[in-house]
């Protein structure tokens, strides 16, 4: 079974530029999550999708962050314009078995904003 795929693995941009991260969850997983992990901290939930609908985006800074999940499969997280404090690892996770509750994570996309 293929795992959660994320790209790019690393990205360096200047502040005020834009960036997009892509996630392909495990096949058949209905729930997809984007987390932000700042160095030395735990992952912070940004947005949760159930199929292609948003379940929770209460912690997503909507003035600069946007996310979509087309056709309930792949997802894209965009930041525009980026700020220095957006430097973090952006983790995508998926879950297809609500009774077990296990999340499967990708390797993450590390963003550095200069």
């Amino acid at each position: 079974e293929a795992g959660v795929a994320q790209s790019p693995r690393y990205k360096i941009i200047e502040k005020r530029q834009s960036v997009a991260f892509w996630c392909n969850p495990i096949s058949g997983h209905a729930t997809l999550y984007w987390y932000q992990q700042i160095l030395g901290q735990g992952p912070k939930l940004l947005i949760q999708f159930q199929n292609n609908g948003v379940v929770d985006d209460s912690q997503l800074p909507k003035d600069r962050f946007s996310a979509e999940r087309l056709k309930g499969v792949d997802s894209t997280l965009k930041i525009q314009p980026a700020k220095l404090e957006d430097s973090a690892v952006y983790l995508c996770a998926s879950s297809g078995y609500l009774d077990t509750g296990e999340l499967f994570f990708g390797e993450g996309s590390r963003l550095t904003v200069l």
Partner: protein
Amino acid sequence: SQQGEEDPQALSIQEGENATMNCSYKTSINNLQWYRQNSGRGLVHLILIRSNEREKHSGRLRVTLDTSKKSSSLLITASRAADTASYFCATEDTGNQFYFGTGTSLTVIP
């Protein structure tokens, strides 16, 4: 914040010793899970304990849950150098949303 807290923040032990880390959380939960993260990698699920369970074992892992105190502990027995990683607790609330703790960085010295 819905995020839990873990202690200690960092733990350094000798190979063969046991490692214990604790997690406290704030809200009602469906279950609590522990994840491991090696440096520069994604998180990997270790073990899940449901809200109606008090203790669970998996290999060298033992997790306890006290819902009255809103706390959990993870014990790793007979630690190995390969156990060096960060460990996070995650609570799943009734809306199937997951909130992670602040993490414990474990170093096992060979």
